[in-house]
Every structure is written in structure tokens, then in C-alpha cells.
């Protein structure tokens, strides 16, 4: 897209804006910003290495960089924690990565109005360290808790394990956004920056949550704060079948327990997978074939009352308590094990390199069982063919509905992959596998992602051309072209290049 001359000229001006120390051009510093946590085609690494990296500190710097990108027609790719699983921060057309990690100021903690104003590079783990002595709590709880940033969570429209507190869209009151042409706007509910609800104007805030950096760069956000919960109580119950666990989850969700902050179910294949190497599961009797995993957060009196109800109802549904040690231990390390490169064993117990990658989808509750059956059948097709590269480590499901744990669920299938064996053929097979999984989700009236984002290689076309075929994708293209006339912002993502192709065809 851009010539070397244009890039060179632009970088000179970028240095004037942010200073030389904030512009990185060494190959290895660029190469480290080519990938995110999602499976990466290392054999095509060079294609995704950006031409330069910029680390701005202020909204004004970001706005000036964006204006320069328009002047020189150089792509910009916003990058936050880079822990995402849908490649939002992977450059598809090279250009300049705008790494927002240096924008890490907590600008205000407003205890009276229970909100804080933060820059996008603030990490949840750092934020909670500051909030803790004030008795406050930022409840967003992704698996990437230790490595994501709030800006990245907004950019991907993140899903939180503590759905009882709401997911990212429910946790953001307003944002300051640099649009793709460099104007700075407030995206909010109505006019106030600290309001949680207004009936005035379009809901502009929602446009800038989950757009994967295609519509602008968030440079500030006003976020919700919660009182720090007095009590936290995780507990795991084993069930004789996935159906029994699902029945239990459905009943439990409808109790209306306010302190039921999190609920997670493992299907039979997941439990079988965990028996290969996880001491908490190896010791469970064969009768445990599925798991329901709860966490209650809230005032101690409420959590105690919830404990009684949980124990009674799980017992009624055939559940067996795993005990305090396993429950608390598993909860404490819930952010840790997911992406470990060495997290694989054969069914015979032999160790082998491999890491989990999960594909997620939003699914109506009534279709959860069917989706897993169809997904596992797809996975089997590929594991039969490439047993040393892919493996099926089972399914996980959680209520997806914020504050209301019923009706809409998120389903995830964990595919173990040995990414080091990827070549072009296997990479294409991997994309095919993902495409088939996504098509099942759309087929049952679901969405290809409730958590990671829909701009994943392999299945993004399913999202744009099948899932969003009732006019949504056409509207997305119109909005994209209106806000980003030069296709500067993260070009290639979400098939939005099609917006510009259409113009040429006309």
C-alpha cells in the first residue's frame, strides 16, 4: 500500500511527535509485534511484521499520528496487550503498529460516582492493586487477566468470567476515541462522560467496543467500579453427565442469586482430557463425567446463604462436591494454564508439546448439547487425519448473558495444537477446521464469537457473509467507509476492504 519513501517521510514526522525513543524500527522489535496469542503461521511471519512501531503517551500524540497516516496513506494497527485470540492486532497490510502500552495512567478515581478514568494501557492487575486499598474492585476477569490491557478489552469487546458483574460493554461508561481521520470525540451515553444510561442521541459508545481497531483508537475510558466483595467462594461439583450439569446450571441460573458471579461447565471430553494430567481430576471417580464450577462474590451473608442453596440443588441434581482445596486451587490458577506451550498429553498419558486454542461461539441454551456434538465430530475428522498436530481437549460452556445467567450461553471447544509443526498445508487445514466450527454456530442461530472477536482468520468470512447477512455487514461497510475514507485503520480486518472494492466496482 505505502512506498518506502512515504513511510520514511512519515516516520520523520512521527519522530517529531513522539520523540525518537518512542519509534522502534529494529527488525526484532517489530517482529515481536507481529503475532498475538492466537495460533500464528510462523512460516509466514515476515508477511505480518509491521514497518515500524510507535509508542505514544497522549491522546494528542495519537491524533497527530493518525493524521500523518492519512497524509501518507500508511496503515495503522492499534495494539494493546496482544493477548487476543482473533488476530485483531496482527498487521495484515504491514504499516505502523500503534502500541498503547505506554498510555498507562490512571487519570482519576471518582469514589463518589464509582467510576475511574484510565488510559488504554492500564492493566487490570495493576488497576486492582491501586483500587484494593480503597475498597474498590475492577471486576473484568478474562483468562488474560495478567497480560491484557483495558484498551485491548474494549477493542475486542471482551467477555468476563465474572459475568455477574457484566462483561466489558457493561463496564464502560464512555470513551475518548481518535477517529481514523484524527478527530477526537467522546463516545458515550448522551453527553456526560460519567453516565451509565441516557436516552439522548445514538448509542455511539457501542460502536467503539469490539471493532478490533477498525474504527479508531480509544485513548481514554471512564470505567465502572464496584465495591470490593466481602466474600469470594469458588466451588466445583462433579456430575454423572453433561446433560445433568446443564440441567443443574439452568436451574441454578434461574434462582436469581445475586452473588452467583460465575458459572462454568465442562463436558465429558473436557473432563476426560483433564484426567490425563490434572491431579484435581485424576483422583475423581469414573462416575464424574462432567463438571459445574461456580464462584459466588458478594457480602458474606449473601454468599453464605448462596452456599446452602448451591449445595442443596447440586445434591438434588446428582452433583458431588470436589472439596475446598481443589475448588480454591483451581479458581486461583484460572488465568494461568491456558496457553502453556507444554500442555499436552496423549490419551495414554505420554507428554507431547502442544497448547490449547479455544474457538468460542454464542449459542442459545437449547442448542448447547447439539453444538458440542457437532463440534467434536468435526474435531475428530481432523484429529484422525493429523493426530500428532491436533487433539480435542473438550468443551466448556458458561452463561453468556450478563447479570442474568440463563438463556444465552458461550460455548468453547479447546483444540490442542502443536503450532511448531504448522506449514502452509496444515495452516490451511487449521483454517478449514475453524470455518466448519463457525458454520455450526451460525447454523443453530448463534454467533461465531461471544468472547474472542469475529475477525479470526478462517472464519471471519462466515461472520461477515453468513452471520451478518441480514444487512448488518452492509451497514458495517458503510460506517467504515464514512469514518475511514482512506482505509487507514487496521486495513484487511473484518473483510472491510470490501467496502472500498465496492466503490471501485461502481
Amino acid at each position: 500500500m505505502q512506498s518506502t519513501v512515504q513511510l520514511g517521510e512519515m516516520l520523520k514526522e512521527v519522530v517529531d511527535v513522539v520523540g525518537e525513543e518512542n519509534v522502534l524500527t529494529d527488525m526484532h522489535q517489530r517482529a515481536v509485534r507481529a503475532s498475538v496469542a492466537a495460533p500464528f503461521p510462523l512460516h509466514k511471519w515476515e508477511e505480518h511484521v509491521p514497518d515500524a512501531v510507535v509508542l505514544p503517551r497522549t491522546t494528542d500524540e495519537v491524533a497527530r499520528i493518525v493524521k500523518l497516516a492519512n497524509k501518507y496513506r500508511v496503515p495503522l494497527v492499534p495494539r494493546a496487550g496482544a493477548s487476543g485470540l482473533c488476530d485483531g492486532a496482527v498487521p495484515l497490510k504491514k504499516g505502523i503498529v500503534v502500541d498503547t502500552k505506554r498510555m498507562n495512567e490512571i487519570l482519576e478515581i471518582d469514589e463518589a460516582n464509582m467510576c475511574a478514568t484510565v488510559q488504554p494501557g492500564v492493566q487490570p492487575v495493576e488497576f486492582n492493586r491501586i483500587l484494593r486499598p480503597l475498597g474498590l474492585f475492577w471486576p473484568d476477569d478474562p483468562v488474560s487477566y495478567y497480560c491484557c490491557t483495558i484498551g485491548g478489552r474494549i477493542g475486542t469487546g471482551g467477555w468476563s468470567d465474572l459475568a455477574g458483574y457484566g462483561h466489558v460493554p457493561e463496564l464502560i461508561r464512555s470513551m475518548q476515541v481518535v477517529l481514523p481521520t484524527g478527530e477526537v470525540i467522546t463516545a458515550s451515553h448522551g453527553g456526560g462522560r460519567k453516565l451509565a444510561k441516557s436516552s439522548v442521541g445514538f448509542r455511539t459508545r457501542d460502536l467503539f467496543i469490539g471493532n478490533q481497531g477498525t474504527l479508531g483508537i480509544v485513548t481514554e475510558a471512564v470505567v465502572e467500579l464496584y465495591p470490593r466483595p466481602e466474600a469470594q467462594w469458588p466451588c466445583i461439583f462433579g456430575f454423572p453427565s453433561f446433560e445433568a450439569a446443564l440441567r443443574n446450571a439452568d436451574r441454578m441460573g434461574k434462582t436469581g442469586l445475586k452473588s452467583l458471579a460465575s458459572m462454568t461447565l465442562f463436558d465429558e471430553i473436557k473432563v476426560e482430557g483433564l484426567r490425563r494430567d490434572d491431579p484435581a481430576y485424576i483422583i475423581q471417580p469414573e462416575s464424574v463425567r462432567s463438571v459445574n464450577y461456580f464462584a459466588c462474590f458478594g457480602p458474606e451473608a449473601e454468599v453464605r446463604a448462596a452456599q446452602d442453596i448451591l449445595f442443596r440443588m447440586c445434591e438434588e441434581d446428582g452433583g458431588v462436591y470436589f472439596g475446598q482445596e481443589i475448588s480454591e486451587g483451581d479458581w486461583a490458577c484460572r488465568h494461568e494454564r491456558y496457553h502453556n506451550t507444554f500442555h499436552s498429553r496423549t490419551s495414554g498419558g505420554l507428554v507431547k508439546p502442544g497448547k490449547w486454542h479455544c474457538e468460542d461461539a454464542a449459542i442459545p441454551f437449547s442448542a448447547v448439547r447439539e453444538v458440542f456434538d457437532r463440534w467434536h465430530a468435526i474435531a475428530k475428522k481432523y484429529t484422525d487425519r493429523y493426530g500428532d498436530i491436533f487433539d480435542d481437549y473438550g468443551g466448556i460452556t458458561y452463561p453468556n448473558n450478563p447479570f442474568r445467567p440463563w438463556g444465552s450461553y458461550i460455548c468453547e471447544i479447546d483444540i490442542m495444537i502443536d503450532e511448531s509443526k504448522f506449514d502452509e498445508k496444515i495452516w490451511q487445514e487449521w483454517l478449514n477446521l475453524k470455518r466448519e466450527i463457525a458454520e455450526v454456530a451460525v447454523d443453530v442461530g448463534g454467533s461465531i464469537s461471544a468472547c474472542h472477536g469475529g475477525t479470526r482468520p478462517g472464519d471471519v468470512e462466515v461472520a461477515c457473509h453468513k452471520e451478518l447477512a441480514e444487512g448488518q455487514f452492509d451497514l458495517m461497510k458503510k460506517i467504515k467507509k464514512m469514518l475511514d475514507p482512506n482505509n487507514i485503520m487496521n486495513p484487511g480486518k473484518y473483510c472491510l476492504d470490501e467496502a472500498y472494492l465496492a466503490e471501485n466496482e461502481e
Partner: protein
Amino acid sequence: MAERELLYYKKFYEEPLVLDKPIPDKMGKDMYFCFGCRTKHCRYICPVYKELRNESYIAYGRHNALLSVAKGLEDLRNLANTMTYCLECNACELRCPNTLFTADFYRYGTTPTDFTRKIRRDLLAQGVKPDGWEEVEKYIAEHMGYFEGPHEEITKWAQGLKLPTSGKTVLFVDYWTAFNATDIARLVAKILAAARVKIAIIDHPGVTNGELLDSDLKKWLEHGKHTIDALKAAGAETVIVINPHEYSYFVRQYPKYLGTLPFEVVFVTDYVNDLVKKGAITFKNSVNMVATYHDPCALNKFCDVWESPRELIKAIPGIEFLDEDHVSQWDYCCGNGTATFRKIHPDIAYRIGRSRLERALDLEAGNLIVSCPHCQDQFLEVKDKSRLPIEIKHIWEVVAEAMGIEK
């Protein structure tokens, strides 16, 4: 400790990387095993990252950099400066999901500190020096000068203490401590004498510093062997080590390359704490202060020594101790690092040190107790420069005051 060391000992790190030649397969795989994770738990815990927010410098970034060389994208020479942005504090190794969950049954862990040292050495051996390396060379030359100098200079710190040069229990005092933290070495000798422990010293150890380890493994091991031989010749059955950096080399590095040591090695806080428990040391004076304790990286993150300094502090009357647990301190560092960092990046070292002092002030502690002479040196400099209202106390100053021992 020894078992863990062998688990993490990658002999293939000793095969040098050669400029303009392919990166050996084993090394490439080693880099991939870090790249494969990409959740970067090594990021938020890195004290350098906290100040600079540049992920090129975290363990993941450094492994990724060499992987980019292995894949033909980058030239090995260009890694020289990047490799200097590591404190060698070992937080990333501890926090790595490989270490935490799978290293034991896979017999494989991520070893970012060993890796960084290796890359530095391989580049230096081929004449590729990072910016600012002259300060490191000057420091090594200074210690080499001590080594080549007369016995009397080396043991001057012990003047008047009448310490023999042979005995079953030897106090090991490295060159840094002997010449830059003389008071601390003398206090330890006096504390042990007061507890009626007969200690000896050796009058001519080798150069044991991390700067030489970062530069030339062969020479560093030659000096290590010299030191071990000298301790053995002095009749040592127990060696009490005063400097956490050197302690980590005695327990983690020398056995790896030179085999089991012919004596027991104990860190001085462990040794003195045992004396307190046995009643050989009593604290007759109250030391009135509100204090917290700083875990030195070499003890806490390399050797898992963190209990004995806390027990000692708690045993001293008058101290209101505001403890911050040792795991929370994985992402702390005084800013000195365990070898070359402060010499090359003094400004960043200052920022890291200042952030650490601010954490102590968050606890409303008026004093920060340290157990490492390098931490003491660094924090005193940061305190002077920042004028933060906190006093830096070495644990032996506090223990001596409680015992009624004068400097």
C-alpha cells in the same frame, strides 16, 4: 535446589551462537517454547517493563528476538543492546507457566536469565559489545586488580578482628563486599564472634561477580574453581556467604558446571537465624522503628530464601514490621539487578529503585530493611537523589544494634 538446577540445566546453551551462521535447532526450539505461549505472564512482572512498557525487553521479547534470527528475519548482532535491558532478577522464570505447571513432568523449563547471559557472552566473544559495556569492563578490571594484588589489601576489611585463614566454618566475603560494604562484613564477623562461632576467612578468593559471568563463562568458572579450591584448602566444611549474588552462584551455578561442592553452603541470614533459635544470640536492645523488608532478587527469586530475614526481624524487640510477602515481591527489584544492569542503564535503575521505595512508603514504613549490599548501595543512591522520606537499613546494622554491638 540441586535437583531443580539439573532440571533447568541446558547444556546446549554452552554451544556458542556464531554470527552469520544458522541458529542450532535445539536453540530454535527453546525459543519457540517461549514464543508458543504468547500470554506473556513474564510481562507485568518485569520491573524493567513496568518502567519502559516496551515488550521487546521482557523474557518473551528476548526469546522472540532470537527466534527472529533463527527464522532469518534479524541479524544476531542487532540483539546486543536489547539483551542489556534485563536485570537478571529471575522474576520471569518463576512466573513462567512452564515453570509453574509443567516443567517438572516435561523435564523442561524456560530459563530467561541463563539465556540472556548466554547471548551476551556469545556476542562479546565475537567482538559485538552493547552500548555502555565499558562500565562493566571497568568493574571487572577493578576486581581482577584485587585478585592480582596482595593478600593484605583483600583482607583489610577484617583488620583487627583476628580472623584465621583456616577453619571448619569459613565466612566468604567477595570483592564487592570486602571493598564497598566493609562495615557490613565487619558487623557479620562481630555478630558471629559474639555468638561464639569460630570463623575463618580466605585471603585470596577468585573473582566471583556476575559481570564476569555475563562476559566470559570459561574465565568465571576458572575463578570459581580457584575459590572452591581455596575454601577447601582452608578446611571449610561450612561456608557462610554474605552476599546474595555470590550465594546464588554457589548454590545454582557452580554445582551445575563443577559438580557437587566439597562443603555445605549457607546464606548468612539462615545461619544467624539458627543461632537466634538456639539461644546463642539474644537481643538485649529494643530497636524502635516501623519497617518493611526488601527481598533481594538473588535470594528470593533464585534461591527461595525469604523466611530467615523475616524471622530475624520479627525476633528483634521494638520493630513494628510491615511485611510484604515474598511472592508479591517477585516483581520488585532495587534496580541494581544481579549483574550489569545498573552500570549500563543507571537512569532506568533509578526509576526502578524509586518505584520500589514508593511501594514501601505505601505501607507507611519509615525504614526499608535490606539483606544485600548491592540493594543497600542502590537504595542509598536512590534515596539521596529522590529525597524520599525513608531510611535504608542493612539487616546486620539492625541485628547488631539489638545485640549491643558497635560498628
